[in-house]
């Protein structure tokens, strides 16, 4: 096979993986969210819609049905694991209601605007080693879809367009609560984007690159493989983590959809699959931000002693992807955990935390790291 064909094929396969990834992971995330929520609240959570091989004891003659142990006869893979599917079917069969006051074009466009930029930005995240020798054929494949030299800036640029989905949805609904949610969301996301970008700048200054793959390599090759930026830049990591919650509109910063005040926030007027796509976009944004955090502060796909960042073997590449996935779910789980722990901030608290605490802290951190790096190295 010639080089171009392999390159095109590799890009196609990686694109399918990147696009399919959120669609495959989001149901699991929803399940995780519901289970963690109920466990924290002392409940069991969904356990009725199961992936099961059926009541196999009914195949036996009636007299022998009792002979099988119940655990085998009523085998369930993970209790409630098909609940997201049931949720999806419910959403798909719900009546689509378009408010009479709605701006039809914007109303229909908003869910797409909320999902597409976020899913596109996933392309920048490296999910494995950069030097995989594809099945020993001599073609080296970088396990990252868009290896642009702007790296994190490109991801940030495209990902920041996700706010339009919320803003346009709130405006296009032609109703006051969605509008308030959209206004809040725009204000909140702009405010926290600044703190987040400043925290990222500290990380960029430390690693000396904006290329995300180079970021991982930097972390994998310094401090004996444990040069993760969350150890080198703990304050930046903390600020990024806090801003991440605000960017994803998740508790404790879920003011754009604060139920007690805004009914449902920007998606109050949405039902059926359009609401479902908003939901999908929200969880994809969660994956994107967690992926960015993993890549920039937790060493990405690298793990000392287990993964050699420059090896070309297939097993090494597979392991690196597995490590990335494990770290990703660690951060996602942490986000879910926090959501069911902390109450919502008041709006003025949110703004004062963002502008009066996080932004100056991140700025100070940036200046100090720049000075230290200049004079130390």
């Amino acid at each position, binding site marked *: 096979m010639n080089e171009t064909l392999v390159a095109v094929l590799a890009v196609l396969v990686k694109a399918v993986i990147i696009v399919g990834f959120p669609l495959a992971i989001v149901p699991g995330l929803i399940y995780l969210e519901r289970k963690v929520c109920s466990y924290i609240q002392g409940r069991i959570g969904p356990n009725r819609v199961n992936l099961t091989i059926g009541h196999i004891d009914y195949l036996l003659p009636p007299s022998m049905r009792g002979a099988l142990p119940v655990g085998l006869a009523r085998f369930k893979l993970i209790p409630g694991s098909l609940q997201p599917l049931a949720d999806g079917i419910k959403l798909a069969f719900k009546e689509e209601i378009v408010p009479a006051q709605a701006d039809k074009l914007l109303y229909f466009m908003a869910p797409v605007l909320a999902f597409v930029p976020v899913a596109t930005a996933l392309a920048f995240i490296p999910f494995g080693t950069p030097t995989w020798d594809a099945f020993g054929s001599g073609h080296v494949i970088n396990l990252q879809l868009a290896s642009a*030299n702007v790296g994190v800036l490109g991801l940030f*640029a495209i990902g*920041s367009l996700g*706010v339009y989905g919320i803003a346009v949805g709130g405006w296009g609904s032609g109703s006051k609560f969605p509008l308030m949610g959209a*206004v809040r969301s725009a204000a909140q996301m*702009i405010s926290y984007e600044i703190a987040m970008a400043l925290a990222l700048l500290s990380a960029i200054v430390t690693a000396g690159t904006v290329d995300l793959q180079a970021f991982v390599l930097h972390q994998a090759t310094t401090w004996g493989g444990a040069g993760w930026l969350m150890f080198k830049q703990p304050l930046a990591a903390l600020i990024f983590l806090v801003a991440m919650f605000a960017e994803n509109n998740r508790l404790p910063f879920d003011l754009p959809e604060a139920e007690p005040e805004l009914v449902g926030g920007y998606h109050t007027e949405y039902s059926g699959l359009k609401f479902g796509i908003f939901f999908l976009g929200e969880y994809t944004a969660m994956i994107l931000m967690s992926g960015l955090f993993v890549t920039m502060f937790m060493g990405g796909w690298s793990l000392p002693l287990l993964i050699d960042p420059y090896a070309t073997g297939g097993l090494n590449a597979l392991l690196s992807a597995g490590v990335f996935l494990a770290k990703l779910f660690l951060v996602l789980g942490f986000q879910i955990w926090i959501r069911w722990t902390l109450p919502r901030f008041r709006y003025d608290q949110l703004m004062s935390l963002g502008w009066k605490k996080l932004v100056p802290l991140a700025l100070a951190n940036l200046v100090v790291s720049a000075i230290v790096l200049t004079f130390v190295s």
Partner: protein
Amino acid sequence: MPTLLVLLAGAVIVAAGIVTVTRRNPIHAALSMLVALGGVALLMLALHSTFLAAMQVLLYGGAIMVLFTFVIMLLTLREDEMGPEPPARTKTVAGAGAFFVLAIVWWAIATRDHHDFQAPALGGAFGSPEHFARFLYTDYVVSFELVTVLVMAAVAGVIVLGRRADRESLEGTRLTQAPAHKDPHAAPAGRDEVQP
């Protein structure tokens, strides 16, 4: 391939620009402007300036246009608040003026002897953040610093204007102070409407 991209970006920019100036609905206009800015980013991408393209989307798309839509949403203009539709004659004159400017630019470009223009050979790192930064902080450092001074002055000016507006001109319009300026012997407000 790059030429095709340039043409595509140009078409997107022109189409979105026309939509921007012809829409009455401010949100529609703002979103078309966003598309036009995205087209500019595409143009930069076609010219191998990836860093500039990313910055274009990040700053204009992710920040400035969000602020625009934010302000528009805060104002929530209704149809009758947008002012009267301009008469057809004004539109015709405006269209002709725009076409005239376009024709002059076109003429200037077309009559220029373009054979003496040689596109410089681009290195592999062209358009990367490092490449961009090297230019910014060596050849163009003076203009860059001057721009930062300008931005700083703008920020300071905004703060001064904002504070003054809060302290002085809005002082007398507070609802709690309004009754003090009124004639105490005047009839209570709203009484005329109540009585037939």
